[in-house]
Protein backbone atom coordinates (compact mmCIF):
# COMPACT_ATOMS: atom_id res chain seq x y z
CA UNK A 1 0.00 0.00 0.00
CA UNK A 2 1.45 3.34 -0.99
CA UNK A 3 1.17 6.52 0.99
CA UNK A 4 -1.34 7.85 -1.51
CA UNK A 5 -3.86 5.22 -0.43
CA UNK A 6 -3.98 6.55 3.12
CA UNK A 7 -6.15 9.44 4.19
CA UNK A 8 -4.03 12.39 5.35
CA UNK A 9 -5.73 12.28 8.77
CA UNK A 10 -4.73 8.67 9.15
CA UNK A 11 -1.14 9.38 8.23
CA UNK A 12 -0.69 11.00 11.62
CA UNK A 13 -1.81 7.82 13.31
CA UNK A 14 0.53 5.42 11.58
CA UNK A 15 2.00 3.85 14.66
CA UNK A 16 5.55 2.97 13.75
CA UNK A 17 7.62 3.66 10.65
CA UNK A 18 8.57 0.47 8.84
CA UNK A 19 12.30 1.01 9.23
CA UNK A 20 11.86 0.85 13.01
CA UNK A 21 10.16 -2.51 12.77
CA UNK A 22 12.90 -4.40 11.03
CA UNK A 23 13.02 -7.82 12.60
CA UNK A 24 9.96 -7.33 14.78
CA UNK A 25 7.26 -6.52 12.25
CA UNK A 26 5.76 -9.99 12.59
CA UNK A 27 5.56 -9.56 16.33
CA UNK A 28 3.92 -6.14 15.97
CA UNK A 29 1.37 -7.56 13.54
CA UNK A 30 0.53 -10.34 15.93
CA UNK A 31 0.28 -7.85 18.76
CA UNK A 32 -2.28 -5.91 16.74
CA UNK A 33 -4.18 -9.06 15.82
CA UNK A 34 -4.43 -10.24 19.40
CA UNK A 35 -5.23 -6.98 21.15
CA UNK A 36 -6.67 -4.77 18.44
CA UNK A 37 -10.23 -5.78 19.22
CA UNK A 38 -12.78 -4.69 16.63
CA UNK A 39 -15.72 -4.23 18.94
CA UNK A 40 -16.22 -2.34 22.16
CA UNK A 41 -16.58 -4.45 25.28
CA UNK A 42 -19.93 -4.52 27.00
CA UNK A 43 -20.22 -1.55 29.38
CA UNK A 44 -20.76 -2.26 33.04
CA UNK A 45 -24.01 -1.31 34.75
CA UNK A 46 -22.99 2.21 35.73
CA UNK A 47 -21.70 3.08 32.28
CA UNK A 48 -24.68 1.45 30.58
CA UNK A 49 -27.09 3.61 32.53
CA UNK A 50 -24.99 6.68 31.75
CA UNK A 51 -24.97 5.87 28.05
CA UNK A 52 -28.73 5.36 28.15
CA UNK A 53 -29.65 8.48 30.08
CA UNK A 54 -26.80 10.81 29.18
CA UNK A 55 -24.92 13.20 31.40
CA UNK A 56 -26.83 15.45 33.69
CA UNK A 57 -25.97 19.09 33.13
CA UNK A 58 -27.84 20.19 36.24
CA UNK A 59 -25.02 21.40 38.45
CA UNK A 60 -27.06 20.99 41.61
CA UNK A 61 -27.81 17.40 40.77
CA UNK A 62 -24.18 16.76 39.84
CA UNK A 63 -22.96 18.36 43.03
CA UNK A 64 -25.44 16.33 45.05
CA UNK A 65 -24.31 13.15 43.30
CA UNK A 66 -20.64 13.98 43.89
CA UNK A 67 -21.40 14.70 47.53
CA UNK A 68 -23.19 11.38 47.89
CA UNK A 69 -20.30 9.62 46.17
CA UNK A 70 -17.85 11.31 48.53
CA UNK A 71 -19.85 10.54 51.65
CA UNK A 72 -20.32 6.98 50.46
CA UNK A 73 -16.61 6.24 50.50
CA UNK A 74 -14.70 5.28 53.63
CA UNK A 75 -12.43 8.28 53.31
CA UNK A 76 -15.49 10.49 52.95
CA UNK A 77 -17.04 9.08 56.10
CA UNK A 78 -13.82 9.62 58.02
CA UNK A 79 -13.62 13.17 56.68
CA UNK A 80 -17.20 13.93 57.69
CA UNK A 81 -16.58 12.50 61.16
CA UNK A 82 -13.41 14.56 61.56
CA UNK A 83 -15.15 17.70 60.33
CA UNK A 84 -18.02 17.14 62.75
CA UNK A 85 -15.62 16.52 65.62
CA UNK A 86 -13.64 19.62 64.73
CA UNK A 87 -16.78 21.72 64.49
CA UNK A 88 -18.02 20.45 67.83
CA UNK A 89 -14.68 20.96 69.52
CA UNK A 90 -14.14 24.40 68.06
CA UNK A 91 -17.68 25.42 69.00
CA UNK A 92 -17.31 24.24 72.54
CA UNK A 93 -13.77 25.56 72.57
CA UNK A 94 -14.86 29.07 71.60
CA UNK A 95 -17.56 28.91 74.21
CA UNK A 96 -15.03 27.67 76.74
CA UNK A 97 -17.36 24.81 77.56
CA UNK A 98 -14.91 21.93 77.23
CA UNK A 99 -13.50 20.09 80.23
CA UNK A 100 -10.49 21.80 81.76
CA UNK A 101 -7.59 19.90 80.23
CA UNK A 102 -9.28 19.58 76.84
CA UNK A 103 -10.09 23.29 76.86
CA UNK A 104 -6.44 24.05 77.60
CA UNK A 105 -5.32 21.83 74.73
CA UNK A 106 -7.77 23.43 72.31
CA UNK A 107 -6.76 26.87 73.51
CA UNK A 108 -3.08 26.07 73.02
CA UNK A 109 -3.77 24.70 69.55
CA UNK A 110 -5.73 27.83 68.70
CA UNK A 111 -2.91 30.02 69.91
CA UNK A 112 -0.55 28.39 67.41
CA UNK A 113 -2.80 29.37 64.52
CA UNK A 114 -3.47 32.84 65.83
CA UNK A 115 -6.80 32.23 67.53
CA UNK A 116 -7.42 33.35 71.03
CA UNK A 117 -9.63 30.74 72.65
CA UNK A 118 -10.45 30.76 76.31
CA UNK A 119 -8.56 28.27 78.37
CA UNK A 120 -9.29 26.81 81.71
CA UNK A 121 -6.60 29.05 83.14
CA UNK A 122 -8.29 32.03 81.56
CA UNK A 123 -11.44 31.32 83.48
CA UNK A 124 -9.50 31.26 86.67
CA UNK A 125 -7.47 34.19 85.56
CA UNK A 126 -10.54 36.23 84.83
CA UNK A 127 -11.75 35.59 88.30
CA UNK A 128 -8.44 36.68 89.60
CA UNK A 129 -8.53 39.67 87.31
CA UNK A 130 -11.86 40.79 88.52
CA UNK A 131 -10.80 40.32 92.06
CA UNK A 132 -7.11 40.61 91.87
CA UNK A 133 -6.21 43.32 89.42
CA UNK A 134 -5.80 45.51 92.34
CA UNK A 135 -3.43 43.03 93.87
CA UNK A 136 -1.35 42.99 90.74
CA UNK A 137 -1.38 46.70 90.42
CA UNK A 138 -0.47 46.95 94.04
CA UNK A 139 2.45 44.65 93.58
CA UNK A 140 3.65 46.02 90.33
CA UNK A 141 2.56 49.57 90.57
CA UNK A 142 6.01 50.96 91.20
CA UNK A 143 7.29 49.28 88.02
CA UNK A 144 4.41 50.25 85.79
CA UNK A 145 4.38 53.84 86.81
CA UNK A 146 7.56 54.32 84.85
CA UNK A 147 6.04 54.03 81.35
CA UNK A 148 4.40 57.32 80.48
CA UNK A 149 0.77 56.24 80.25
CA UNK A 150 -2.07 58.39 81.31
CA UNK A 151 -4.16 55.70 82.93
CA UNK A 152 -1.55 54.25 85.16
CA UNK A 153 -0.94 57.23 87.33
CA UNK A 154 -4.62 57.16 88.16
CA UNK A 155 -4.27 53.52 89.10
CA UNK A 156 -1.36 54.37 91.28
CA UNK A 157 -3.44 56.94 92.95
CA UNK A 158 -6.19 54.42 93.28
CA UNK A 159 -3.75 51.97 94.72
CA UNK A 160 -2.91 54.47 97.31
CA UNK A 161 -6.54 54.63 98.19
CA UNK A 162 -6.85 50.85 98.43
CA UNK A 163 -9.72 49.16 96.63
CA UNK A 164 -11.33 52.15 95.08
CA UNK A 165 -9.98 51.93 91.56
CA UNK A 166 -13.08 50.89 89.73
CA UNK A 167 -15.31 53.75 90.68
CA UNK A 168 -12.67 56.28 89.69
CA UNK A 169 -11.99 54.55 86.38
CA UNK A 170 -15.64 54.34 85.62
CA UNK A 171 -16.11 57.93 86.42
CA UNK A 172 -13.24 58.98 84.25
CA UNK A 173 -14.35 56.84 81.39
CA UNK A 174 -17.91 57.94 81.69
CA UNK A 175 -16.77 61.47 81.52
CA UNK A 176 -14.78 60.77 78.46
CA UNK A 177 -17.25 58.54 76.66
CA UNK A 178 -20.70 57.39 77.57
CA UNK A 179 -19.88 53.74 77.28
CA UNK A 180 -20.19 51.73 80.38
CA UNK A 181 -18.49 48.56 79.05
CA UNK A 182 -15.24 50.38 78.64
CA UNK A 183 -14.54 50.38 82.34
CA UNK A 184 -13.57 46.72 82.47
CA UNK A 185 -11.70 47.16 79.23
CA UNK A 186 -9.61 49.83 80.79
CA UNK A 187 -8.66 47.47 83.55
CA UNK A 188 -7.90 44.74 81.02
CA UNK A 189 -5.66 47.03 79.06
CA UNK A 190 -3.97 47.83 82.29
CA UNK A 191 -3.52 44.14 82.91
CA UNK A 192 -2.08 43.60 79.49
CA UNK A 193 0.36 46.32 80.14
CA UNK A 194 1.22 44.62 83.34
CA UNK A 195 1.71 41.37 81.51
CA UNK A 196 4.15 43.01 79.21
CA UNK A 197 5.76 45.30 81.71
CA UNK A 198 7.01 42.65 84.13
CA UNK A 199 9.30 41.16 81.54
CA UNK A 200 12.12 43.60 82.04
CA UNK A 201 11.50 43.36 85.75
CA UNK A 202 11.79 39.60 85.52
CA UNK A 203 15.02 39.98 83.66
CA UNK A 204 16.30 42.12 86.39
CA UNK A 205 15.16 39.58 88.91
CA UNK A 206 16.82 36.87 86.93
CA UNK A 207 20.05 38.69 87.22
CA UNK A 208 19.82 38.44 90.94
CA UNK A 209 17.87 35.30 91.58
CA UNK A 210 16.71 32.36 89.56
CA UNK A 211 13.16 32.48 90.85
CA UNK A 212 10.41 34.90 90.02
CA UNK A 213 8.61 35.29 93.25
CA UNK A 214 6.23 38.04 92.33
CA UNK A 215 5.77 37.55 88.62
CA UNK A 216 5.03 33.84 88.68
CA UNK A 217 1.69 34.07 90.41
CA UNK A 218 0.77 37.14 88.44
CA UNK A 219 1.51 35.35 85.18
CA UNK A 220 -0.51 32.39 86.23
CA UNK A 221 -3.32 34.57 87.26
CA UNK A 222 -3.44 36.82 84.26
CA UNK A 223 -3.11 34.18 81.57
CA UNK A 224 -1.05 31.20 80.71
CA UNK A 225 -0.28 32.52 77.27
CA UNK A 226 2.28 35.20 77.79
CA UNK A 227 4.98 32.89 79.12
CA UNK A 228 4.39 30.51 76.25
CA UNK A 229 4.51 33.25 73.71
CA UNK A 230 7.68 34.57 75.24
CA UNK A 231 9.11 31.09 75.13
CA UNK A 232 8.13 30.82 71.54
Amino acid sequence: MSDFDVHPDEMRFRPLPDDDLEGVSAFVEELRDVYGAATAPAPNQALASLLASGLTTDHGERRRRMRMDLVGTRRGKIGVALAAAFAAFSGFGVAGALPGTVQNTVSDAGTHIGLHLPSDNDDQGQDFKSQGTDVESEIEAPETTEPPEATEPTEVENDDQNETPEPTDVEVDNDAQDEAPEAPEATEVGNDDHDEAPEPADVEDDDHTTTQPTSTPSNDESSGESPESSND
Partner: protein
Amino acid sequence: MTPAAERGRFGPTFGSVLVAAQAGAPWALTVIFETLAPAVAGYLRAQRADDPDDLTSDVFLRVFGHVARFEGSETSFRSWVFSIAHNRLVDQRRRLARRPAVVPIEEATATMSGGDTEEEALIGLAEQRVQELLATLPGDQRDVLLLRVVADLTVDQVAVALAKSPGAVKALQRRAIARLRRQLTDRPVPL
Protein backbone atom coordinates in the same frame (compact mmCIF):
# COMPACT_ATOMS: atom_id res chain seq x y z
CA MET B 1 -21.33 1.14 14.74
CA THR B 2 -20.22 3.92 12.41
CA PRO B 3 -17.36 3.44 9.92
CA ALA B 4 -15.38 6.03 11.84
CA ALA B 5 -15.87 4.05 15.00
CA GLU B 6 -14.69 0.93 13.21
CA ARG B 7 -11.43 2.64 12.38
CA GLY B 8 -11.15 4.07 15.87
CA ARG B 9 -11.33 7.65 14.58
CA PHE B 10 -13.99 10.33 14.78
CA GLY B 11 -12.81 12.19 11.71
CA PRO B 12 -14.50 15.47 10.82
CA THR B 13 -17.43 14.76 13.11
CA PHE B 14 -15.30 15.03 16.22
CA GLY B 15 -16.21 18.65 16.96
CA SER B 16 -19.94 18.06 16.88
CA VAL B 17 -19.63 14.82 18.85
CA LEU B 18 -17.59 16.55 21.54
CA VAL B 19 -20.03 19.46 21.84
CA ALA B 20 -22.96 17.06 22.10
CA ALA B 21 -21.11 14.92 24.65
CA GLN B 22 -20.33 17.99 26.72
CA ALA B 23 -24.04 18.79 26.65
CA GLY B 24 -24.69 15.26 27.91
CA ALA B 25 -26.28 13.76 24.79
CA PRO B 26 -26.45 9.96 25.12
CA TRP B 27 -25.79 9.40 21.41
CA ALA B 28 -22.53 11.35 21.57
CA LEU B 29 -21.35 9.45 24.61
CA THR B 30 -22.15 6.22 22.83
CA VAL B 31 -20.17 7.29 19.75
CA ILE B 32 -17.16 8.14 21.91
CA PHE B 33 -17.39 4.83 23.72
CA GLU B 34 -17.79 2.76 20.56
CA THR B 35 -14.96 4.61 18.84
CA LEU B 36 -12.33 4.45 21.54
CA ALA B 37 -13.34 1.58 23.81
CA PRO B 38 -11.93 -1.20 21.60
CA ALA B 39 -8.46 0.32 21.63
CA VAL B 40 -8.67 1.13 25.34
CA ALA B 41 -9.81 -2.40 26.16
CA GLY B 42 -7.08 -3.84 23.92
CA TYR B 43 -4.44 -1.76 25.66
CA LEU B 44 -5.68 -2.80 29.10
CA ARG B 45 -5.86 -6.44 28.02
CA ALA B 46 -2.33 -6.31 26.65
CA GLN B 47 -1.21 -4.83 29.94
CA ARG B 48 -2.87 -7.79 31.66
CA ALA B 49 -5.21 -5.62 33.67
CA ASP B 50 -7.53 -7.33 36.08
CA ASP B 51 -11.01 -7.48 34.50
CA PRO B 52 -10.08 -5.23 31.55
CA ASP B 53 -13.67 -4.83 30.34
CA ASP B 54 -14.83 -3.46 33.67
CA LEU B 55 -11.76 -1.24 33.87
CA THR B 56 -12.59 0.06 30.39
CA SER B 57 -16.03 1.06 31.62
CA ASP B 58 -14.40 2.69 34.60
CA VAL B 59 -12.12 4.67 32.28
CA PHE B 60 -15.06 5.97 30.25
CA LEU B 61 -17.05 6.84 33.34
CA ARG B 62 -14.13 9.03 34.30
CA VAL B 63 -13.81 10.43 30.79
CA PHE B 64 -17.49 11.35 30.68
CA GLY B 65 -17.31 12.80 34.16
CA HIS B 66 -14.73 15.32 33.00
CA VAL B 67 -15.57 15.72 29.32
CA ALA B 68 -17.38 19.00 29.96
CA ARG B 69 -14.05 20.63 30.77
CA PHE B 70 -12.11 19.18 27.85
CA GLU B 71 -10.84 21.52 25.17
CA GLY B 72 -8.80 20.44 22.19
CA SER B 73 -8.61 18.41 19.01
CA GLU B 74 -9.31 14.76 18.39
CA THR B 75 -5.61 14.05 18.72
CA SER B 76 -5.41 15.53 22.18
CA PHE B 77 -8.72 13.91 23.14
CA ARG B 78 -7.31 10.51 22.25
CA SER B 79 -4.16 11.22 24.26
CA TRP B 80 -6.29 12.34 27.18
CA VAL B 81 -8.44 9.19 27.13
CA PHE B 82 -5.37 6.95 27.08
CA SER B 83 -3.70 8.93 29.84
CA ILE B 84 -6.79 8.24 31.95
CA ALA B 85 -6.69 4.58 30.94
CA HIS B 86 -3.02 4.32 31.86
CA ASN B 87 -3.56 6.07 35.19
CA ARG B 88 -6.47 3.79 36.03
CA LEU B 89 -4.28 0.81 35.20
CA VAL B 90 -1.53 2.06 37.49
CA ASP B 91 -4.09 2.68 40.24
CA GLN B 92 -5.44 -0.82 39.84
CA ARG B 93 -1.96 -2.34 40.04
CA ARG B 94 -1.19 -0.40 43.19
CA ARG B 95 -4.46 -1.48 44.71
CA LEU B 96 -3.90 -5.11 43.83
CA ALA B 97 -0.34 -4.97 45.12
CA ARG B 98 -1.65 -3.84 48.47
CA ARG B 99 -4.59 -6.24 48.48
CA PRO B 100 -4.21 -9.16 46.07
CA ALA B 101 -7.44 -10.19 44.41
CA VAL B 102 -8.95 -13.48 45.47
CA VAL B 103 -10.43 -15.42 42.56
CA PRO B 104 -13.07 -18.00 43.44
CA ILE B 105 -12.18 -21.49 42.27
CA GLU B 106 -15.28 -21.62 40.05
CA GLU B 107 -14.15 -18.56 38.10
CA ALA B 108 -10.61 -19.85 37.82
CA THR B 109 -11.69 -23.17 36.37
CA ALA B 110 -14.15 -21.45 34.03
CA THR B 111 -11.34 -19.27 32.70
CA MET B 112 -9.07 -22.25 32.23
CA SER B 113 -11.69 -24.18 30.32
CA GLY B 114 -12.64 -21.18 28.16
CA GLY B 115 -10.68 -22.19 25.03
CA ASP B 116 -13.11 -24.74 23.76
CA THR B 117 -12.92 -24.01 20.10
CA GLU B 118 -9.86 -24.31 17.92
CA GLU B 119 -9.93 -20.62 17.09
CA GLU B 120 -9.97 -19.63 20.74
CA ALA B 121 -7.13 -22.00 21.41
CA LEU B 122 -5.07 -20.46 18.63
CA ILE B 123 -5.79 -16.96 19.90
CA GLY B 124 -4.84 -18.12 23.34
CA LEU B 125 -1.54 -19.49 22.03
CA ALA B 126 -0.83 -16.32 20.10
CA GLU B 127 -1.60 -14.24 23.17
CA GLN B 128 0.66 -16.43 25.23
CA ARG B 129 3.54 -15.95 22.77
CA VAL B 130 3.01 -12.20 22.65
CA GLN B 131 2.83 -11.98 26.42
CA GLU B 132 6.03 -13.99 26.78
CA LEU B 133 7.84 -11.45 24.66
CA LEU B 134 6.18 -8.46 26.30
CA ALA B 135 7.19 -9.83 29.67
CA THR B 136 10.83 -9.43 28.70
CA LEU B 137 10.40 -5.67 28.42
CA PRO B 138 10.73 -3.27 31.31
CA GLY B 139 7.46 -1.61 32.30
CA ASP B 140 8.06 1.79 30.71
CA GLN B 141 9.21 0.24 27.41
CA ARG B 142 6.14 -1.99 27.38
CA ASP B 143 3.87 1.00 28.05
CA VAL B 144 5.33 2.90 25.11
CA LEU B 145 5.21 -0.04 22.73
CA LEU B 146 1.61 -0.93 23.54
CA LEU B 147 0.42 2.65 23.30
CA ARG B 148 2.15 2.98 19.95
CA VAL B 149 1.02 -0.35 18.49
CA VAL B 150 -2.26 -1.29 20.17
CA ALA B 151 -3.61 2.20 20.90
CA ASP B 152 -2.21 3.62 17.65
CA LEU B 153 -0.89 6.75 19.34
CA THR B 154 1.83 8.90 17.85
CA VAL B 155 5.03 9.62 19.73
CA ASP B 156 3.67 12.98 20.82
CA GLN B 157 0.41 11.45 21.98
CA VAL B 158 2.24 8.78 23.95
CA ALA B 159 4.36 11.50 25.50
CA VAL B 160 1.22 13.29 26.65
CA ALA B 161 -0.42 10.10 27.89
CA LEU B 162 2.61 9.02 29.91
CA ALA B 163 3.65 12.53 30.96
CA LYS B 164 7.08 12.12 29.35
CA SER B 165 8.97 14.08 26.75
CA PRO B 166 8.75 12.96 23.10
CA GLY B 167 12.48 12.32 23.15
CA ALA B 168 12.15 10.00 26.10
CA VAL B 169 9.33 8.15 24.38
CA LYS B 170 11.40 7.71 21.23
CA ALA B 171 14.31 6.39 23.25
CA LEU B 172 12.10 3.93 25.12
CA GLN B 173 10.55 2.74 21.87
CA ARG B 174 13.97 2.25 20.29
CA ARG B 175 15.18 0.26 23.28
CA ALA B 176 12.01 -1.83 23.36
CA ILE B 177 12.31 -2.79 19.70
CA ALA B 178 16.01 -3.53 20.04
CA ARG B 179 15.32 -5.77 22.99
CA LEU B 180 12.51 -7.55 21.17
CA ARG B 181 14.75 -8.05 18.16
CA ARG B 182 17.39 -9.65 20.36
CA GLN B 183 14.79 -11.86 21.97
CA LEU B 184 13.49 -13.00 18.60
CA THR B 185 16.93 -13.76 17.22
CA ASP B 186 18.35 -15.38 20.36
CA ARG B 187 15.28 -17.41 21.10
CA PRO B 188 13.22 -17.83 17.95
CA VAL B 189 9.56 -17.86 18.66
CA PRO B 190 7.25 -19.21 15.96
CA LEU B 191 5.10 -16.23 15.02
